[in-house]
């Protein structure tokens, strides 16, 4: 297939279609709306289910219902809308249903603004709603990765019967880049054996997230934790850049991680040995590799478009092996490469100081 120039939101929508998306429910919110608009046309053309809901609360519960039927289902939103979805996300997790939710993050808290942000890191990685679980969270840094991760998200959701979030800042949603779409997968014609399709010549199926007895609820919790342990062991994804010889390791994801490449080039031209680890999965966080690299480098520098959220996961992984610095912009401000270079300079200055 040849490359084409696509906007992130449209690319995600088209990738979902090609991954066999059978039902989509959503509500307009900037900077995600093109995703919904694109599907409003394409899903109908392809005779699949599209519905603009009356709110994100309704949208996520429609997703919950459609997920019960065992089809590939998705919703998308941006930060305030994802806040509204939290209860539904938790029910979906409690019911062990596969589905994909896209969050194109914007500045906050509150109504905030429509500029790119990574302020939802806690909201999406900690549990996405109430209760004791974690969704799988994929964080693309380019339009191509947004496409690839959308397809991957459906596969992971089905593989683990687990909620998967694709989380990108607004820049990735709105930016146009050359990219390649995947081939069309045929829409699944069969349903999983647990799906609610009518109890015709089989035992009836029931999908709930209620376990009144403490022992039973804990049984569910233990099962979920075992699944999450498998996910942590097998699904950590990241990319590295110039980590072989670096003294300072930058950790950044999405747009912040991408801007770090330019900053690293500049720092390297000044003779500073800087490398990058860019997490592609925020949950499971690539903790093992960060821990290994923490043994090897002198210092780490976390770069985010928030006040320091992934910073906590980095510190947990580093576990005191090396000092961790932080540079962040907030409120929809995107860090400039030279600002990151200044942060790199500061980290090196600290390294030069006697402990």
């Amino acid at each position, binding site marked *: 297939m040849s490359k084409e120039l696509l906007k992130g939101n449209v690319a995600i929508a088209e990738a979902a279609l090609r991954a066999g998306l059978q039902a989509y429910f959503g509500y307009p919110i900037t900077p995600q709306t093109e995703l919904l608009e694109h599907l409003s046309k394409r899903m109908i053309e392809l005779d699949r289910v599209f519905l603009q809901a009356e709110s994100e609360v*309704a949208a996520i519960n429609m997703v919950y219902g459609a997920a019960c039927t065992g089809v590939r*289902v998705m919703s998308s939103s941006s930060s305030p809308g994802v806040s509204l979805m939290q209860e539904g996300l938790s029910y979906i997790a409690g019911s062990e249903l596969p589905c994909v939710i896209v969050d194109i993050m914007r500045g906050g808290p509150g109504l905030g603004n429509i500029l790119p942000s990574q302020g939802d890191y806690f909201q999406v990685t900690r549990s996405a709603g109430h209760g004791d679980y974690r969704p799988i969270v994929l964080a693309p840094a380019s339009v191509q990765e947004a496409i690839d991760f959308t397809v991957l998200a459906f596969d992971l959701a089905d593989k683990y019967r687990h909620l998967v979030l694709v989380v990108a800042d607004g820049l990735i949603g709105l930016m146009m880049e050359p990219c390649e779409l995947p081939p069309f997968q045929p829409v699944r014609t069969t349903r999983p054996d647990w799906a609610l*399709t009518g109890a015709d010549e089989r035992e009836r199926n029931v*999908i709930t997230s209620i376990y009144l007895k403490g022992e039973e609820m804990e049984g569910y919790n233990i099962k979920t934790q075992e699944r999450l342990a498998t996910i942590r062991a097998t699904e950590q994804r990241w990319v590295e850049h110039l980590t072989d010889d670096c003294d300072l390791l930058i950790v950044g994801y999405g747009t912040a991680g991408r801007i770090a490449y330019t900053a690293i080039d500049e720092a390297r031209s000044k003779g500073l040995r800087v490398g990058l680890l860019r997490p592609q999965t925020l949950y499971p966080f690539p903790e093992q590799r960060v821990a290994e690299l923490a043994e090897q480098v002198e210092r780490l520098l976390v770069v985010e478009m928030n006040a320091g959220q992934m910073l906590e996961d980095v510190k947990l992984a580093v576990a005191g092996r090396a000092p961790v610095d932080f540079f962040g912009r907030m409120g929809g401000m995107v860090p400039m490469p030279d600002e990151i270079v200044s942060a790199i300079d500061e980290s090196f200055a600290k390294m030069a100081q006697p402990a």
Partner: protein
Amino acid sequence: MSVIAPETMETVYSYPQSLTEKPTHYCPGCTHGIAHRLVAEALDELGLRERTVMVAPVGCSVFAYAYFNTDACEAAHGRAPAMATGIKRVDPDNIVVTYQGDGDLAAIGSADIMHVAARGDNITTIFVNNAIYGMTGGQMAPTTLPGQKTTSSPMGRNVDMTGMPIRMSEVLATLPGSAYIVRRSLHDVKHIRKAKKAILTALKVQQAGLGFSMVELLSSCPTNWGIQPVDALQWVEEHMVPYFPLGDYKIADGVADL
């Protein structure tokens, strides 16, 4: 399970196929049990059990999924209509039924029910209105009558402060997507029979794809009203029926031919 008359050997009672044999957790004298049975009988009579998906609410009927012998799921509080929309849009040939209390439908889920009706989603809602929040121990609902004492309106519902009770059937009937909206009561045998007929019609409306159908059932909650079951039925008749008049609020074209 069935009961056979010894003299005639006729079956005088049998358990609906569409109910499981699990004993319900409802309080003695609660009309939720009657409502369940009516829905199950209607599903049986129309031969719909095998392609029905029930959506249980949050409320006393949270375990409806355990009692209906169909595929079933459990919605978040108030969200059964949205969940039903998701299910029905994927599988339009299946019969999707929500079963909801008045807190669930008229308070936290008021937007959800308005919009299934507005869209004319082909689902059926069984709306059990007992003028109170049963499950959480008897707090005021949007349907609680003026002056009615509840645990959160201990001096009686003050309408100056909380407004008047919502009449959901009347509200939903104004929406063009509604095809069949009626209110019935479960306070005596005659009315229970009428309720059953209405549930049958509502399911036929869904089968025929005519739009949104809802049967509101005036029901009792002896436990949280703090009165005996028989008195509770009388209370429905004397206090609820006057404020929530029984009747047909929306009968769309085509319903009469079913």
